[in-house]
């Protein structure tokens, strides 16, 4: 197989993924053979292979999700059972959030999703019997409308699809509409999309467009819903971005765990190509290999260029120096999928969809202790109570804690149920809306365990480039693990110094953001941390 593999460094991740898929796990010998074939030094391929969680695992390994929602539903015991049941030679691995929190506790075997894991479901999966169908729980909406499914291109076009692309406004007008819409990145960082597009257009051509589909924020499933249900809509948004940026090459960086999205996107891209919609353009899927940090935009670029996915120092930003050093427009899947509606109905009309003074709509992932976990389109400015009651069918339990938008967004007490989930609304609570991955935890699940699991997640996923993230997260994980046993690893004041250093000096959002949930927990559940002593005086 080696001779047919391309030798450009940018193909390294793809080559490794293909080898794993078609031949088997990437062993040191295979790693060296690829290095020699691609004329890359062996040590550098070793660095890349070991960086990702999956390249050294067989494709059919059984993966059990231990994300917070799955952990709350007993994922650890399920993983233990799976290890007992699995025959020799079938690895069972615990993986960080698989992005199927609506189906928790979840797992995967190869490309098959295993929803609502139980002992019988594990037995079926291990013996290769088909498992229950994966379903979406969602609603209709004015912008992306997940209630509709694009089965085929014809389907999408019959409903007015690609009308925006065919009558594309001028670049100035596009920027105006995006700014009028107040659309801001829904991956979690919330940077204004119009400002980003304008910045890229200011840079000299050639430029690239990259769609960030490496959704990995625990509790966040919205991009998967978009790609599985509205792939054509997302591609229309992407083509608008490519025309806007004058980019002839576009990339979608998709997390490996999203097999259905991979199939749906591949098929949709083929349809577009056959229909002549890609004239002179190429859209390529880049498949990740299991690394949360690759959702950070500069880590993603490093990964695409065939290196370890370690974030770059910013500035410069990708809009100036991006993929292969060229100006690159990077948007999250959901963000780009809102663009057609904004250009169709006007930015102001889209902005007016919000409520309580907030603008626009977004996709809310709702999981945990709710009756109908799923992904729902609802206005910005919505409160947790509205989302839970009006969309997710209400809570199933007494609510103990809520994570509003992914691991680094914060941890809120039930008192926050009526706060609008916006940047402004959550500021006083020391939290953020993040990726809108709302996870609802029952009162029976200890916030201390949630916190310990959250810090373990950050520690495991740290790329190891910078000290505060690399050791800070491990240190806090240790602190909370000890505290669960009633021991004090370091006093509260010193822990706060660690949090300050992490927030201020980490290179990227991982280490900068991970102190949020800790500070929230210190504030909202002071009794749990009383043993640590007095908080620092500020």
């Amino acid at each position, binding site marked *: 197989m080696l001779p047919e593999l391309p030798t450009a460094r940018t193909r390294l991740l793809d080559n490794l993924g293909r080898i794993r898929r078609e031949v088997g796990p990437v062993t040191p010998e295979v790693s060296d053979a690829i290095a020699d074939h691609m004329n890359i*030094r062996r*040590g*550098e391929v070793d*660095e890349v292979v070991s960086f990702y969680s999956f390249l050294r695992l067989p494709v059919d390994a059984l993966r059990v999700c231990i994300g917070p929602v799955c952990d709350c539903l007993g994922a650890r015991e399920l993983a233990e059972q799976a290890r007992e049941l699995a025959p020799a030679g079938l690895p069972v691995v615990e993986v960080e959030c698989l992005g199927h929190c609506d189906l928790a506790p979840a797992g995967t075997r190869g490309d098959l999703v295993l929803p609502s894991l139980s002992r019988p479901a594990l037995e079926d999966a291990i013996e290769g019997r088909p498992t229950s169908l994966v379903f979406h729980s969602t609603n209709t909406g004015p912008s992306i409308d997940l209630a509709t499914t694009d089965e085929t291109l014809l389907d999408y076009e019959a409903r007015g699809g690609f009308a925006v692309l065919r009558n594309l406004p001028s670049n100035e007008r596009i920027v105006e509409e995006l700014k009028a819409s107040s659309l801001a990145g829904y991956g979690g960082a919330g940077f204004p999309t119009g400002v980003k597009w304008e910045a890229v257009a200011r840079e000299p051509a050639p430029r690239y467009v990259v769609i960030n589909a490496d959704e990995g924020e625990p509790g966040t499933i919205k991009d998967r819903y978009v790609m599985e249900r509205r792939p054509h809509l997302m591609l229309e948004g992407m083509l608008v971005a490519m025309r806007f940026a004058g980019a002839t090459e576009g990339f979608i960086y998709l997390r490996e765990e999203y097999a259905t999205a991979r199939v749906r996107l591949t098929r949709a891209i083929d349809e577009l190509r056959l229909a002549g919609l890609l004239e002179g353009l190429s859209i390529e899927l880049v498949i990740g290999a299991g690394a949360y940090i690759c959702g950070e935009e500069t880590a993603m670029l490093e990964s695409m260029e065939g290196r370890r996915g370690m974030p770059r*120092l910013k500035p410069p930003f990708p809009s100036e120096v991006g993929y292969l050093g060229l100006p690159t427009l990077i948007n999250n899947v959901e963000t780009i999928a809102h663009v057609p509606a904004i250009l169709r109905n006007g930015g102001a009309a889209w902005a007016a969809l919000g409520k309580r003074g907030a603008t626009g709509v977004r996709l809310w992932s709702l999981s945990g202790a709710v009756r109908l976990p799923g992904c729902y389109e609802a206005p910005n400015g919505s409160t947790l109570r509205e989302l839970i009651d009006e969309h997710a069918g209400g809570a199933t339990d007494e609510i103990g804690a809520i994570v509003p938008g992914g691991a680094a967004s914060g941890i809120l007490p039930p008192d926050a149920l009526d706060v609008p989930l916006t940047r402004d609304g959550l500021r006083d609570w020391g939290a953020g809306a993040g990726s809108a991955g709302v996870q609802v935890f029952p009162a029976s699940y200890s916030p201390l365990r949630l916190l310990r699991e959250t810090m373990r997640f950050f520690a495991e996923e740290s790329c*190891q480039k910078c*000290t505060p993230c690399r050791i800070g997260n491990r240190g806090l994980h240790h602190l909370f693990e000890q505290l669960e046993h009633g021991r004090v690893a*370091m006093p509260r004041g010193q822990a706060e110094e660690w949090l300050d250093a992490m927030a*201020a000096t980490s*290179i990227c959002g991982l280490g900068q953001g991970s102190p949020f949930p800790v500070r929230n927990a210190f504030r909202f559940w002071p009794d749990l941390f009383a043993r640590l002593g007095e908080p620092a005086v500020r």
Partner: protein
Amino acid sequence: MKPTVTFTLDGQKASAPEGELLVHAAARHGVFIPTLCHDDKLDPYGGCRMCVVGVEGSPRPLPACATRVREGMAVSTNSSVPQYRKTLTEMLLAEHLNPNPGGRPNELMDMAAELGAEAPFILPDAKREEYDDRNRLMGYDPDACILCNRCVRYTQEVMQCSALSLEGRGPHARIVPTHGYSWLDTECELCGGCLSVCPTGAIYEKFEEGTRRPERALTKVKSTCTFCGVGCQIDLNVDPETNRIVKVTSDSSYVSNEGNLCVKGRFAFNFVHHPDRLTEPLVRGEDGELHPATWEHALQTAAEGLQGVKERHGPLAIGVLASARLTMEENYLIQKLARTVLGTNSVHSCEAT
């Protein structure tokens, strides 16, 4: 010449060539900003974060090792910076199990002493897999490594052998020769450059295992490497008690080699004290054995021998092989001797290949 820009450093007016790294610009103004992962031979990395400084207009402090001076920049090193530095040091100490595996200097421990930083605890996963290498020159203790990645980047950017890898993600990440193999089974040439850039001495010379004296207690004697014509500047590290050379180091300030050495320059110094080493001229006597002689007698004997060959067989019967360890100037003189005195063009040095 780069244009000069003015900026402020802790409120004082300062100037620097445009684009100079902050860490250097500050040093020239007497403000020392500590670094661990930085090395001038390598591209800025900004990983250890020890050197972060406040820059007006930036929402977060920026690493001085990777930030370049701009006109009007306002830099501060005295607000929250000292506390960050101390906390970051505490963090590194929380997994620094062995501060002194091989006697090399440990900059992290220096910093800890200076800042009064101590580890609040040792991380339960601090212990790394042991690494034992069968090569005779370099040792490595992963428990002294702070993952600053200097050695890895050195092998990639300077030596271009990439013999070391930063493997993995999360708590189990480690730095090892490719795949954790022995250095001998990687693309390593055993130049020891990786150990020379290691700030904590995690990689060290096995060769000096005869001495337990730390490197800082040795006397450094500056010299020129005698192995080839490049003229690398070296420091012979002499044990003051035994007066023996126990290791060779080089400094990145040295012009011809910037602190880089090859395997011979760094490790092959044991000939100096070797009992077989010739310390005086020897001349073979009538009895067929070598006998000590004066330089006059030895040179006279050699000259007579060569003269004799030339007379009996002509100058083309003589060939000259010059040692690879001679300098360019010495090689020039050798060929001069061969061509003008001995009269032969058959002159060669293995440096020519």
